[in-house]
């Protein structure tokens, strides 16, 4: 009988315990509710604005994702005012430093309070100066980074990340009306071109490794193309491209060569641009495009090279090689001259010798191309020899003090013939070649003959002098003896 009473007591105990646990839980959660007095919740600006409507609520709403929000930097850090008071007059009072909505360079000054490095860099960049003079900043931080919703650069939703940055830059730089108020001469087709490029196509497919605007132009330190410090100044472009394209590891998955810069450095174009500072020499962007960067089509190589080398392009286009290369899908000029490592052509590129480019295809001696190359080679070798011989003949005469100005005058034309003939090779037409080179032989013959005649004259003078001297000496001796004889007689 006593056992049953105890069990009833145990049931009540269970209820008490359960109630106790529930109370405990409630107390605990109540604590957390109380400790949900976060820093954010302490910020009265944020709190107040969150409860407003429309455009007054938007900043606070957006601010939830902002990196400053997460790091504990709130409204008053930028706008000033008193964040502890919920009385509008107190919290938004000028005495407490409230500045309202900052405008123009005010914005930059605010950001620069913490981000001073970026600010200083921006000041000396193309966006920091304007055509109207220093002090008027073209682009303030919020234009690119956004406002109230600034996320870290690495975050995919950042306005300055990967594919987004392209559109961010494009939002001003593709806007004709907008750009006109700053620099009417600046192109606005960069984004359009970029979308046709390999980089553009891949970036919109999600490849974040390819180049975007900032990869080549920089971010805060963007300089005008004409500024030698700019990363896209003609002499700096090869290095800029090479940053990615020369890195074998980085480029591993793309299966394209990474030796372009090394080759280019040793090329005629590279030496002209990088060592001689000749800005008219092409760097990567001249052949590949800059914003629309992609290698030229196999069949448009001639046209691209032909932008500068017009004559040779036209000659090649008229030659049988044009169609033949197209059929075999060969890259026209680059077949013989290479693409990046273009060196100054030499006479041994022509013909059938070891260094010749002709025998790369024309391997058989019965082949017409082989024979043509062989004839051209021997003719040009022969002309080179004649040029030397004629030059020596003229120099020989000149050293002896004879006048060779006439010979030198006609010999000067040899330069033109050599250049013309070497270029006429691009026609691959033996008759045209012979026509051109025969002019050269005419010149060298004439020069050689004139030079040799001058030397002959030199020796003739000495010979004549010798004969005259002998004659006069005999005469002198005869006279002397005659004198002796006469005086003896007297």
């Amino acid at each position, binding site marked *: 009988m006593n056992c049953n009473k105890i069990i009833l007591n145990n049931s009540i105990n269970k209820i008490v315990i359960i109630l106790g646990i529930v109370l405990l839980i409630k107390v605990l959660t109540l604590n957390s509710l109380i400790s949900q007095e976060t820093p954010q919740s302490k910020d009265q600006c944020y709190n107040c604005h969150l409860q407003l409507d429309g455009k007054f609520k938007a900043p606070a709403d957006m601010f939830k994702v902002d990196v400053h929000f997460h790091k504990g930097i709130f409204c008053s850090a930028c706008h000033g005012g008193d964040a502890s008071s919920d009385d509008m007059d107190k919290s938004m009072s000028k005495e407490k430093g409230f500045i309202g909505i900052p405008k123009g360079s005010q914005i930059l000054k605010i950001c620069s309070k913490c981000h001073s490095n970026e600010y200083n860099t921006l000041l000396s960049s193309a966006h920091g100066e304007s055509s109207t003079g220093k002090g008027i900043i073209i682009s303030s931080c919020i234009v690119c980074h956004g406002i109230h919703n600034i996320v870290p650069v690495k975050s995919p939703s950042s306005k300055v990340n990967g594919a987004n940055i392209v559109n961010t830059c494009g939002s001003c730089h593709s806007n004709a009306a907008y750009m006109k108020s700053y620099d009417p001469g600046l192109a606005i087709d960069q984004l359009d071109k970029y979308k046709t490029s390999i980089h553009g196509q891949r970036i919109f497919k999600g490849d974040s490794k390819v180049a975007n605007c900032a990869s080549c132009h920089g971010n805060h330190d963007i300089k005008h193309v004409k500024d030698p410090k700019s990363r896209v100044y003609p002499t700096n472009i090869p290095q800029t491209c090479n940053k990615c394209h020369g890195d074998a590891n980085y480029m591993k998955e793309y299966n394209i060569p990474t030796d372009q810069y090394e080759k280019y450095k040793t090329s005629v174009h590279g030496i002209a641009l990088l060592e001689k500072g000749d800005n008219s020499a092409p760097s990567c962007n001249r052949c590949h495009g800059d914003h629309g960067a992609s290698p030229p089509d196999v069949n448009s190589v001639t046209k691209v090279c032909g932008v500068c080398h017009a004559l040779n392009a036209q000659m090649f286009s008229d030659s049988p090689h044009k169609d033949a290369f197209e059929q075999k899908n060969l890259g026209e000029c680059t077949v013989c001259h290479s693409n990046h490592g273009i060196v100054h052509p030499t006479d041994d590129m022509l013909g059938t010798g070891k260094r010749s480019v002709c025998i790369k295809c024309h391997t058989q001696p019965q082949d017409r191309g082989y024979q043509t190359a062989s004839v051209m080679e021997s003719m040009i070798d022969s002309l080179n020899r004649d040029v030397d011989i004629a030059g020596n003949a003229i120099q020989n005469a000149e050293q002896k*003090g004879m*006048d060779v*100005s*006439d010979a030198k005058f006609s010999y000067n034309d040899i330069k033109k013939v050599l250049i013309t003939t070497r270029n006429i090779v691009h026609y691959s037409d033996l008759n045209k070649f012979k026509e051109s080179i025969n002019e050269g032989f005419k010149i060298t013959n004439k020069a050689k003959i004139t030079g040799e005649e001058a030397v002959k004259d030199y020796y003739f*003078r*000495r010979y*004549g*002098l010798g004969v*005259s*001297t002998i004659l*006069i*000496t005999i*005469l*002198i001796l005869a*006279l*002397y003896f*005659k*004198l002796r004889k*006469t*005086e003896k007689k*007297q």
Partner: protein
Amino acid sequence: MKKRSILKNTYEWLNGRFQLDSLISFMKKKDVPLYRGTIWYFFGGITLLLFVIQVVTGILLLLYYKASAELAFESVQFISAKVKFGWLIRSIHSWSANLMILSAFIHMFSVFFTKAYRRPRELTWYSGFILLALGMAFGFTGYLLPWNELSLFATKVGTDIAKTFPLVGTFVMTFLRGGENVTGATLSRFFGFHVAVLPGIFIIFLSMHLIFIQRQGMAVPENWDEIPEGTKKHIPFFPNFLMRDLLIWLIIINVLAILAVFFPWELGKKADELAPAPAGIKPEWYFLFMFQTLKYIPAKILSIDGDVIGIMLFTLAGLFWFLVPFWDRKKPEGVKRFWLTYFGVFVIIFIVVMSIIANWWGG
């Protein structure tokens, strides 16, 4: 009568008209003293030979030379390069000019030291001095004619000095230059002087000079009278001395040919009137001593321009030299006038030293 040679017939024909016989017999008497100093007697003939060569080569050059600023240089180049033997004619003309002046100087000094200017040969000396001055004028005017860089500036410097003459200086300079500066007008003028005016005047004085010499015979040295009669030697002018003359002339001709072949006269760069003077510009060698002396005279002496002083000094010195037959007449017995000889030696040394300095250490 035996068949007479053509030569004899010609002689007789002329003799009948010009009494050549008396002329020949007079000239036969001319003889030359034979002693240590006889060698100096050749220099007059050498100068004459060189003058004749100048006339002949000058006439030949005239056939191709063009005397305008645009064409002069090219025409000389044409002669040297294209005309057959043009190089020879041109080089001989230039070398012979210099040798002629050198020979004239030697001739003058030899006459000075042997005192052959004394009575009765004063006029021979005066005409000879004038011939030397004319010769140097020939050299000065001829030097400009190739119209090359050196000659343009040498002429500029030379005519600048003319300006320093007091009172008449500017007029003389403008007259010489045909204007304010040395231009194509100067070239025309110098050409006219060189081929017409100077030859005309020269021929007159040369004829006088030669006639005087022929009329008076060769001068004998100072101490000729003291030499005993037996040991004194003479050689007849015709044919002995003349043959010796001929011998030397043949040697000179050969020397000229050798010089023309081995040391051809340079042409240099065409004159550019607008270009600045190249460094180290100097006149021809026979003016160097005057040029250098002027450089040593301080810029101003007692408020008179140094250049004017220099020119006046040279003019006075020249005048003194010119008038030496007047100063130095035959002295009374026993009195030796050494100072004049020393003066002459001093002049030679002065000229030589100044020329060397000017040429190799150019002021």
